[in-house]
């Protein structure tokens, strides 16, 4: 997080993590497509010739905020391929929140688990603790055959701490919910740590209404939060 007092501007860094080909870049593209032009900048991709992420993707978002404190959000993806470990570690530096994009297919369970271990290790190397990191999980590719059933995921999610969202990033489903859900968890953590509400008179409710409206959603943050699976313990915090 960067806070520019003179410009009254807050910059938040969110990172989309996950195994190779789980749909991290697709999430960013869908998020870019869903947002109002005045809220989003150009989606920057640094990729190889076969469209695999080489370093990262970066989507900048800007919101008015409240009480003169504007909020800039930088959403990054990491390269999923195993060989890019050092790049993942660099991109994770200074992350305020992480969305873990997993593949719903049962065959990908090991890849998900391996990538999650990698996330924990890389956070540790950056001096960050996974337990204190705002985290949401997206089970992507719900439209493919061989996926875990929703009941199964709900059952598993109920035992975990993190909110879980279901998604089909290629169709844009669940993408905004995942993002807004992550932003909400991250905001709560940052607010708790830096007392943003108290210091700036920042109002969370109207801010999230603005965020949602920029994605064409006429709803409140609690509507988004009801669509998640599990994470009850997180919500109770």
């Amino acid at each position, binding site marked *: *997080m*960067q*806070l*520019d007092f003179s410009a009254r501007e807050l*910059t938040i*860094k969110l990172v989309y993590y996950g195994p190779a080909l789980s749909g991290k870049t697709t999430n960013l593209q869908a998020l870019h497509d869903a947002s109002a032009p005045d809220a989003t*900048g*150009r989606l*920057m991709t*640094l990729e190889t010739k076969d469209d695999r992420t*080489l*370093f*990262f993707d*970066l989507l*900048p978002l*800007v919101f008015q905020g409240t009480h003169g404190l504007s909020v*800039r959000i*930088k959403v*990054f993806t990491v390269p999923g391929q195993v060989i*890019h*470990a*050092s*790049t993942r*570690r*660099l991109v994770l*530096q*200074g992350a305020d929140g992480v969305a873990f994009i997993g593949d719903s297919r049962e065959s990908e369970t090991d890849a998900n688990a391996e990538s999650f271990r990698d996330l924990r290790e890389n956070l540790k190397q950056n001096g960050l603790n996974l337990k204190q990191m705002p985290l949401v999980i997206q089970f992507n590719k719900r439209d493919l055959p061989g996926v875990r059933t929703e009941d199964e995921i709900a059952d598993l999610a109920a035992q975990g701490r993190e909110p879980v969202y279901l998604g089909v990033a290629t169709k844009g489903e669940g993408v905004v919910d995942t993002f807004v859900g992550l932003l909400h968890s991250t905001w709560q953590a940052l607010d708790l740590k*830096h*007392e943003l509400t108290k*210091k700036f008179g920042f109002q969370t409710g109207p801010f999230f209404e603005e965020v949602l409206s920029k994605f064409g959603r006429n709803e409140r943050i609690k509507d988004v939060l009801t669509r998640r699976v599990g994470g009850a313990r997180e919500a109770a915090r």
Partner: protein
Amino acid sequence: MTDLPPANTLDRLTMEGGFTLEELVNRATLVELCAGVAELFSVPLRLFNGSGALVVDTHPSPRLHQYFGTQSGGRRILRDIVESVKALNPTSGMAISAVCPSSSRFLVAPVIYDTRRLARCVLGPFVPSELEQVPPALFQIDPGLEAGRLTELWRELPRMTDANANACVRHLTKTLELVLFSGHRALLASNMHLASTQESYRELEEKNANLSLAYERLKELDRLKSNFLATVSHELRTPLTSIIGYSEMLSAGIAGELTTEQLDFVNTIHEKGEQLLELIKGLLDLTKLESGTLNVRMSEVDMTALLEDVVATLTPTARRKEVELTASSEPGLLPVWGDAPRLRQVFVNLTENAVKFTPAGGSVRLTAAVVMELLEDDEDGPAVVLKGLKRPMVEVRVADTGIGIPPEERNKVFDAFYQVDSSSTREAGGTGLGLSIVRRLVDSHSGLVWIEGNQPNGTVFCVKLPCKKGSFSG
């Protein structure tokens, strides 16, 4: 509340937007881009960077303004124009300055990238196209400025509608934004590349450090093992010598006549004692060779005689196994530069091995011949290769018709205690030290030892040994 400082330039380049116009795009590109737009619309264009410095200026100031500069009233007008343009600093959209009595105007717009204003572009001066008459105010600037000349120069000023001027600036700022985006992308990619490489390098350094630490520890352990082996071998030899000596005396009847059965037992003790001594000697040799304390006394060695001696020594063993054992050397074989007893040990080991693994009816053949070897690693280096200097070496081949060694095992058999198939050892006997000693002895002679397959079956152990230095042939 202050956060940690950014850990690297990537944070600066992505999180803070702490980059400048010139960092993202080089100046020449900006000049070319603006010149293109200015030429297309025939209007002067200036670009100022974030700190207000002039980066691009496509045209010299118009001749009308140069003429203003000749009189004090004109100079005052010029100052007003500069001040009013400077004062225009829109954060979004465009602003028009129109303070000049000539009715010429400037259009100012910010260049915004990633919500940061990186530059300001100034279009003009231009006169609105619809204006046909010279504005009367032009003639009241200074009495020193001549009306005819003013009119002439005023007509030179570029004409443009406000709508066109807006379109022009919009086009320029849009294009600039795209150029800045790709510049930013390239800057990030190169910085990321550098940072990733550094991070990988750091990681490798760490691994290397750990590896060399482990290597040092292993080397130390190896040294301890060698020391231990040397001490133990030495300590084992002393009592063993007594066992062999006393059993020899017993069997010689010094302590009285023995029954046939007793003699048989004592001889077995003696024979096994000798075997054990051989093994211990082998271990001692190996540890000496490993620690480099084995002395080799070099002299000219006649390989023909040496091989014949080896064959003579092992013929009884070969006969018992019904294996044919022969040696043949090329006539006029050059002598080898080496330590005769050690070389004898090499070939006894190899031949004994060959006989051991050759079934009855098979053969073991020792052949020696001179081969010319290109000189390498000499002081003269590659020049010697160019000159084609070769030195003679004697290649001895010990070929058997035994069970053979699979190609992938051929390098491992020279490791101490290594056996291709431990069951065959139990059958054929042996310590697993012989070949290891052979290789180390050959190494200490600057020679080479390797294994080839024999046709149709069996193994060829090849040893190449250098002849005496100076026995060169061109």
